[in-house]
């Protein structure tokens, strides 16, 4: 079919909706509104219930981003599904061996083209504006950060706290204080992803990457390797814990002592 213009029977610009050619706006509106409504409700409700409970600002931003893009997607899906469904409703649909009579060719009116471009551009602008608004500047961490040196090994994470004797496989963090993870790897590329913090950085051999986060909820945080790193990639995880500042101070002192080591061995045995 030549790309431009109407078929041989029709002249450009004479496209009037033909009687019986379906495509009713009512069906499109109802169907589209239904899909958009269900999608919007799902987009607003589900992220808060499915995503891990946020333990930092970044993770809260992720939940909101899910909701914003979800609502936009629901509206887009509503428009597409509504128009698509309406195009199928009506007496003009035929399924046998003989095709229905040719539909009138429609030259694209300038207004329709403009509308399509504007609608898609609006979608782009909405996503971009939201994305820029939640983009955190890569500045220095405020306050007095806890520095943790994170090293990825196949297939375990180790954590060292400079200025202390703590260097092992357990990770505890104080509530409300900025943390600066200095992440690297000794073998292949890993991904350092404390899931409930809603952010991650690659652990690349020979490079130190920095991840800044301020934990704002007490409780467990699972650190998972997010970059395929070989045989036991799935098992490369740490169950970290956000604790109160005083507990954290106690823990730092207690780590490396015989009691802590004994506790760890007991834990492994279990």
């Amino acid at each position, binding site marked *: 079919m030549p790309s431009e213009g109407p078929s041989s029977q029709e002249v450009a610009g004479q496209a009037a909706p033909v009687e019986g050619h379906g495509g009713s706006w009512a069906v499109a509106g109802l169907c589209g509104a239904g899909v958009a409504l269900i999608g919007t409700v799902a987009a607003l409700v589900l992220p808060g219930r499915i995503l891990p409970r946020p333990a930092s600002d970044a993770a809260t931003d992720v939940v909101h981003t899910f909701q914003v893009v979800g609502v936009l997607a629901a509206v887009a899906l509503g428009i597409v599904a509504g128009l698509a469904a309406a195009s199928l409703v009506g007496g003009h649909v035929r399924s046998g061996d003989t095709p229905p009579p040719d539909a009138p060719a429609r030259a694209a009116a300038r207004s329709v083209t403009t509308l399509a471009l504007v609608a898609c551009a609006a979608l782009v602008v909405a996503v971009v504006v939201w994305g820029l608004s939640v*983009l955190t500047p890569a500045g220095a961490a405020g306050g007095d950060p806890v520095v943790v040196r994170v090293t990825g090994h196949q297939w375990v994470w180790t954590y060292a706290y400079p200025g202390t004797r703590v260097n092992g496989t357990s990770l505890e963090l104080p509530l409300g204080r900025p943390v600066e993870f200095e992440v690297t790897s000794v073998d292949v590329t890993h991904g350092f992803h404390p899931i409930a913090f809603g952010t991650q950085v690659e652990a690349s*051999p020979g490079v130190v990457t920095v991840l800044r986060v301020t934990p704002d909820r007490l409780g467990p945080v699972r650190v998972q390797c997010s970059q395929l790193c070989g045989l036991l990639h799935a098992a490369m995880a740490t169950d970290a814990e956000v604790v109160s500042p005083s507990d954290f101070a106690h823990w730092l002192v207690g780590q490396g002592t015989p009691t802590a080591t004994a506790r760890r061995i007991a834990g492994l045995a279990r």
Partner: protein
Amino acid sequence: MTGPTTSSVPRPFRSRTLRERQGVAAGLVVGVLTAAVAWAASHVLFEVGNWGTDRVTAVTMVAWFVGFNAGVGTWNPPLEWLLGSTPGPDVVTLEVGVGRGRYRYLRFCTDHKVVGMQYLGLAVVLLGVGGVGAVLIRTQLLSPHSTFLGPTAYGDVVTLHGLCMVIGVLLLLIGPFASYVLPLILGARTVALPRLNAMGVWIMASAAACLVSTVVIGGADVGWTTYAPLADQASPAMTALALALVGLVACVVISGINTVATVVTLRARGMSARRMPVMAWGAFIAAGLAVATMAGLLLVMTLVLADRTMGTTFFVAPQGGSGELYEIAFWTMGQPLLYVLLIPPMAAVLEMAGSFARRPVFNARLVVWCFVAIAGISLLTLGHHLYTTGLSPALSGSSLVLTELFALPVGVVVLCVLGTVWRGSIWARLPLYFVYLFLWDIVIGGLSGALLGIPTADRDLHGGMVVTAHLHYMMVGVVLVGAAGGLVYWFPKFTGRMFEERTGRVGFWLIAVGIQVTFLAQFWAGAQGMPRRVAWYEPAFRTANQVSTVGAYVLTLGWVVLLWAGVWSARHGRPAPADPWRAESLEWRVPSPPPLRNFPVGPVLAPVDEDTGVDGGTSRLGVPESAAAATAPERGGPV
């Protein structure tokens, strides 16, 4: 698949020339023998262990590649060119497959339609291997700590599944679409570079064997992106895999150049750029994009091979290398590649929408500009694969803007499909079903991509199942669905028989439901925090994974039913007329399947009437349809 063919013309007994003996059988024999000799010789030359094993693997695989293609006859054209000899008419006749019956599908054949079907066969094999991989992966993930595969086999299967699927889909587009249908759409009697085109498929066949052999020789637990330094560390199978990808690059570049050259030089008279069908534009733009970017894959695979066999340290950090180098170089190719895969199915969907809504594609010129925009943006958006690397955080904002910009051209294409079917005369045949499924999937797949394009979201979701769900919505729900619809649409042209739609519809609905269940459940698991490419997971993700696995079984069943319907129809379907869909483009002006040279003489498009703007189109060709039918030989005959 191959359609009914007349038996070969009986020939008087005479000894066969070397060239006549060339074919798949000879290729297998020569290839295996050469590989065995090379294997033995390299064992003497290199000490096995460390690099030695990789060198042995590399030498053996290269020998297989050279030997197999020598046996098939792939090297004949370049050798003749080097020796300065011109093939005589007997060679041309032999190579084009005259009188070879259906054996021409197993030979080096310059007929673009045969090459198209050879690619289709190869694609079906690879998609089949990838599909078995998918079923194995989903079965492993039925329970959190499954021992069904074990981590070693699981990792190998993940790699093979990803690569087989990506390459299989690529071959589906290169073969049936670019090699078979495109010249017919253009009104060409052959492709621009038929011998080069034929070389591509056999190079790919040997590379595919190399790829699948990795199951036997150890497997590579690296994922389809084969990130180094992990790839440096993997078993010697990685060497074979890297060589297979080098072969893939050769195949894609060869067929891409042929596609571009065919569109530029062999269009029917009167088919100006403005009157070129959307499908031809889509193939042209995708092929150009592929030729321009595949070098990135050649680069990283060469460096990986050097690291593995020569002791270089491009990706070994303690010796000055860098894994980030791999990531950047890989995605300069990987990101455009995804759009090489996306554009042709989009174009096929538009053609189908036009044919089954009984009107020309709505706003076709805008669609073409959208394809150009998509290709252009794809060259600038590798950044969103690198959000979590820690490289240049200052670029996050511009990467975000560029990535989201995709929504503009892709969205406009979607609206143009809708504009074509809206108030059209809907002819609800099987290919049209795929058009509507495409529309649904591309909204979900596309906007989940918009979510991942936001750095704040990607820094949480990178490496997780949300990425897997997004890319599968695009690859299966959009690309494969669009391509499958196109295959059903052009099926009568390929085989001369109609597709059996009742069984086909069963397959379609299984596929449509299977996609939603499988991949929506993966969004669910990913949102819960499940990483991708893991053999085990936390018990909290169990329900989502079980739903996804059930969906995957339904989806697989759907593809099997559709394939079965295709195979059955190719043998027993109703004979198809030249133009079963009453469509307007040129491929429907030749018999189904088309004779050797497609058109008795090159067709000429009727001019556009300057006063009324009526496009004479193909309904009034320079060659009357009856003449084309009259001069055509028996349906299915090779000449």
